[in-house]
C-alpha cells in the first residue's frame, strides 16, 4: 500500500526575507482565516534579533508582518502554544534568558505582553531548548551547562525550579514533554534521558546510541513524542540519524535512517538532522500493525532535505534545497501545511493536497 496522501507534489511557496531565520513556528490560529507564523529573525546588518509574527496568504503568496518584538540576544529555541484562548510563544536565547510572549485573544498576532526570566538565573550560557507542556503553563529548559529547569508561567511572573544540575559533566541539546509529569531530553553521544517529576534527583532511564562500530555516535538535535504513544521517543541528529527509543525495550533502538541503518533502509540525508516531528498528515501504511511500528516522521537536514521517513518504507522527499533547512513546523490544526526556514534567508511554506 503506497502512501496515497503524498501522491501529488506539494504546493511550495518560497518567501525571501532579508534576515537570517533562526526558527519558525505556526501560531495556533483562533479562526480558520488566520494563518499566523512566528519567526525568530537575526538581522546581521544591525546585529539585532527579533521575534516577528506574520500572516500568510497563499494567493498571491505573501507573508505580511503583523508585529515585532526585539530580543536582547539571538533566539536559540522557539515554541508556541495556547492557553485560555490566547496564543503564546516561549523563546530561549543564546544569552540564557527565557521570554514568554502573549498574543491578544482579539488580535493573536500582536505579541504585546511579556514575561521574562533573565539570563544567568536558569543557565550558564546559552539555553539549548525550551519546551512547553501541552496545554499547560509549564516549560522545561535545558542547556549545554547540564542543567534541567522547570519554568512555571504565572499571572505576572515566571518562577523556576532546578530539576538537575550535572555541573557541565553532561550537556543537553533538546527536550520534549511526554506527559504532565514526564519529559525526555537528548544530548551528546546520541544519548537520551527520561525524566519523571515523581522520581526526582536523576533521570529514571538513560540511553546511549552505539549501534555502529564504524562511526562514533553524534549529537541528538531534536526529539519528539507522539501524544498517543508516550512510551516512544523519536530522535534526530548527526549523520542523518533518526531513531526511536521505546521505553519498554530501552536497549533496542529502532533506527529509521542514518549510518548503520542497514541496507533495507534508504537514508534521505547524510548530514545533521536539525529537527524531527511526527507527521500527523501522512497516513501510515502500516495500519494493521499499530503498536509496534513507528509512525511517519518528518525531518529536515543540513543538506537541504525535507522528507517523511517511515519504518520499512522508502522516504518521501518533500523539498530538496541547495541550502540547509534549519527548522520546520507542521501546523497542528492543518497538518497539511508545513513551514520551514532555509539557510539563505528565506522561508518555504508547503501545502500538501
Amino acid at each position: 500500500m503506497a502512501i496515497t496522501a503524498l501522491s501529488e507534489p506539494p504546493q511550495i511557496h518560497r518567501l525571501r526575507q532579508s534576515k537570517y531565520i533562526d526558527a519558525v513556528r505556526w501560531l495556533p490560529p483562533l479562526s480558520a482565516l488566520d494563518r499566523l507564523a512566528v519567526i525568530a529573525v537575526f538581522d546581521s546588518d544591525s546585529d539585532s534579533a527579533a521575534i516577528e509574527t506574520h500572516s500568510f496568504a497563499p494567493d498571491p503568496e505573501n507573508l505580511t508582518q503583523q508585529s515585532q518584538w526585539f530580543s536582547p540576544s539571538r533566539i536559540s529555541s522557539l515554541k508556541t502554544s495556547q492557553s485560555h484562548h490566547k496564543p503564546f510563544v516561549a523563546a530561549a536565547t543564546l544569552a540564557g534568558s527565557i521570554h514568554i510572549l502573549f498574543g491578544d485573544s482579539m488580535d493573536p498576532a500582536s505579541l504585546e505582553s511579556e514575561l521574562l526570566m533573565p539570563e544567568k538565573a536558569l543557565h550558564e550560557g546559552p539555553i539549548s531548548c525550551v519546551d512547553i507542556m501541552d496545554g499547560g503553563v509549564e516549560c522545561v529548559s535545558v542547556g549545554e551547562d547540564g542543567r534541567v529547569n522547570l519554568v512555571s508561567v504565572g499571572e505576572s511572573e515566571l518562577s523556576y525550579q532546578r530539576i538537575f544540575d550535572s555541573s557541565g559533566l553532561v550537556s543537553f541539546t533538546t527536550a520534549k514533554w511526554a506527559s504532565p509529569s514526564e519529559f525526555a531530553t537528548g544530548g551528546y553521544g546520541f544519548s537520551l534521558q527520561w525524566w519523571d517529576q515523581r522520581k526526582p534527583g536523576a533521570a529514571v532511564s538513560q540511553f546511549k546510541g552505539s549501534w555502529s562500530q564504524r562511526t562514533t555516535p553524534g549529537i541528538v538535535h531534536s526529539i519528539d513524542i507522539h501524544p498517543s504513544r508516550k512510551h516512544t521517543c523519536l530522535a534526530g541528529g548527526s549523520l542523518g540519524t533518526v531513531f526511536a527509543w521505546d521505553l519498554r525495550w530501552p536497549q533496542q533502538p529502532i533506527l529509521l535512517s542514518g549510518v548503520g541503518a542497514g541496507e533495507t533502509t534508504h537514508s534521505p540525508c547524510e548530514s545533521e538532522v536539525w529537527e524531527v516531528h511526527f507527521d500527523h498528515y501522512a497516513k501510515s501504511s502500516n495500519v494493521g500493525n499499530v503498536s509496534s511500528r513507528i509512525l511517519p516522521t518528518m525531518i529536515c537536514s543540513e543538506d537541504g532535505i525535507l522528507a517523511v521517513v517511515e519504518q520499512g518504507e522508502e522516504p518521501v522527499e518533500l523539498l530538496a534545497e541547495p541550502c540547509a533547512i534549519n527548522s520546520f513546523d507542521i501546523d497542528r490544526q492543518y497538518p497539511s501545511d508545513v513551514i520551514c526556514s532555509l539557510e539563505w534567508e528565506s522561508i518555504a511554506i508547503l501545502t500538501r493536497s
Partner: protein
Amino acid sequence: MPGVASGSGDTRGASGSNDSSLVPYLPELRQPVVYSLHHGLKPPIGRLSISWSRGNNLRVSVLRPPSAEDSDDVEVGGRVVEVRLSNGDGETGDAKWRRIAYGSVPPFALLQSRRSSVASLSKMSMSPSPYNIDWWEYVMEYSKDINSLLGDSKAPPNPVIDDPKTVLRNVEEPTSLKAAWELMEMFYADKQCQSWLLERLVDWLADYDSLLSSTQPTVHSKLVDFQNELVGLQVIEDNPKYWEVLSSALAVGWIEIVVKMLRLHGSYQFHQLGNREIENGLVETVSFLISKMPRMRPEVEYGRLGECYKAKPDFIKAWEKWRGKITKLDCSAFWLQCDHRQTREGLKNMIQIMLGNTDNICNVTCHWIELFISHFLYVRPFTVGLESMYSLAQKCMQLKPMSSAHGLIAIILGILGENTEVILAECSRAFGPWMVAHAIELLTTGSDEAEFLLQEERHSLGGISIAELHRLVYAQVLSSHPLTWQIAPIYLTSCMKQGMGLLEILLYKLPIQHNETLLKNLEICRLYELDTISSNIMKIAGVYHWKHGRKGSGVFWLQQARDEIRLSRIAQHLFDSVGKSISDESFKQWEGLIELLGSESKTTGGLEFLHKYRDFKKSLKQVYGGKTTDTARQAVESLISLMKNPSTPQRFWLPILHDSLKLLNWQERPLLNVSQTSLLLNKLQELSMAKLRPDFIEADLPPQALSSVRLALATNLGRAILEE
C-alpha cells in the same frame, strides 16, 4: 586633528611620496564619505586607533589621555565604536546583494560541474577543443539563471483600458547591474543572436536608456518631460516639442511609442477629419510606414511593431523596398497641399530620419549611444563585426562628446574595442567582485583570446590566472560576512591553485562557540573530505568547551577527534574531582558522562577507567547491602580487572583496595586465589616504591589504611594457600 590626513600638515615628505607612489591616486574618482562617530567622550581625545572588524566594519578605539593622578576625573578612559562602511553602491543594498549571492550559487556550481565533465569527456575522445559545440548553450543557461536574479524583467500587463496619453509605460526601475549583464550576455554567450545583434542593441537601449539619464539628457528623459506636459496640451501638433520628441523616439527605434503619439495628432479628431483630410492622410501614411519597418530578427514580442525577417537576403530586399516607399512619399505632391506648417515640417523631418540623413539624426538624438543605435537603424543596417561597430562608436562620440562617462558606457566601449581587461576593470569598479567573478564565465566563452588571457597562469599573480584571482577575491568577500561564509567554499574549490589553502584558513577561523556554526563548518569539511581540518576543529571545540566548564561536551569533541593526548591530560583533572566527589550521591551527576565515555579504551585516553570504577563501586555497594557470596565474587572480578587495567591511575590503587577490605576479609572463605592476591600485593609493593618519587600524590585516607590493607592481603594469602 588625528585621524584626518591633511595635505598641509606635512609638506616635507609630500614631494618625495609623490614620486614613489605605485598607483596614481585620482582623488576626483570618488567623493570621500564622512561618517560621524558618537563616542560620547569628553575632550581632549589623546589617541585614535583604527582597525578592521568583521566584514565592512571599522573598529575605532577612542582613547583619552591618561588623567593626572590627583584629579577626581571619573570619566572613562576610552571607548571602542564600530563604524559600518556602506559599500558605496546606492543601487543595490546589502540584503539584495546577499540574495543575488545566494541565488547565483546553484547556476555557478552547475556550470563548474558541467565544465569538468565536458573536460573529462574531451580528454577521453581526444577532441581538439575542450568545448564542444553546445558549450555556449550551457553558458547561456547559466547566464539566463543569473540574469533572472538581477531584477524582474516582466513588465506589468497592459492595462485593459489603454490611456492614449500614457506614452511611456510604468515599468520597474531598471538596474545598471542587469543592463551590464545583458550586454555581456548578448555579445559573448548568446551565439544564437549574433545575426541580429543590432536589433538586440536597439532593445537593450529601449530598456536601459533611462539609466543613462543620470549623467546627461537622453531621449528617455525628453520623453518623460513631455509626458508630464502632455496632459495640459490642447492642440498638440502646434507644439514644436511634440515633433521633436516624435523624431527622437523614431531615431532610436521606439516605433510603438511613435505610432501611439502620432495618433494624438489633432487631425484624427472627429470634427476635424473633414477639413484636414490631406494632413491626416499624410500622418496616417507615415505612421503606417513606420509600423511596417523591416527588422532583422526572428520575431517581435506581442504588441510590438515591425516586419520580421530571419534571413539576411530577405531582409535586404524588404528594407530596400521599404526605403523606396519612403522616398516616394517624400516626393509626393500632397505635401504642397498640406497647410499645417508644423505637421508638414515634423513629418518631413521624420522621413529624413528614416532615409538616414545623418544631420537630422544627429540633431534629434542626445547621447552618443543613441546616435550610434540610430545609425544601425537607418544608415548602416547591415553592419557586421565588432571592428566596424567600434569605429562607428568612435565617430558618434566625436559628434556627441560625453561630459562624464556612465559605467555602462565604459563597458560597451570595452566590449566593442575587444578589450577584456577594460571590461573587467569597469565591471569591478562599477559593480564589485560578484560581477567580475561571474562575468568571467561569459567573457571566456566570447573568444579564444579572451579565454587565454583569463585562464593563463601568471607569474605576476603568484602563479594563478586572472579568472582564479577574481574568484578568490569574491570568495574573500563572502567569507567576511557571517551569513555568506557558507557559500565561499563553492567558489574556493573551483580555484585550482590557491582555493583549497584559503578554504582551510577560512574553516579554521570560524567561531566554534555555537554548535550550529561548528556543525555547519564540520559538514563542509565532510563534503570536501578535509579530515585533518575537521579533526583539528573538533579539538579546538573540545578544548573550548572543556575550558568553559562543559566537561561533557569537551570530552565528546576530543573523542570525536580521537585526540588521545588531550583526553589523557584532561583525564588527570577529571580523576582529581572523582577522588574527592564520587560518592553514591554524586554518581548520579557523573552517570551521563560515564555513559558517554563508554567502556572501550580506544578513544577515551584512559577515561574508560571511570566506567570500570563505576561498575566496581556499584557491585561493592551491593556487597555492603548484605548480598550473597556470588555478588561478592562479582565485586572481586571488577576489582581484579580494575587493578590489572593499565589505565587505572596509581593514586586510585590504595583507595580501591581500602574500599574492598570487606572482600579481602570475607568470612566464609577467601574470595581471592593465590595469584590474585599476589597481584594485589605486587601493586602494593609498587605503590611503596612510588612513594619515594616526588610527584606521588598521597591518597586522602586514614593513616593506618596501608597497614590494614597489607594485613588483610597477607591473611587472605594464607587462607588461599591453605585452601589450595
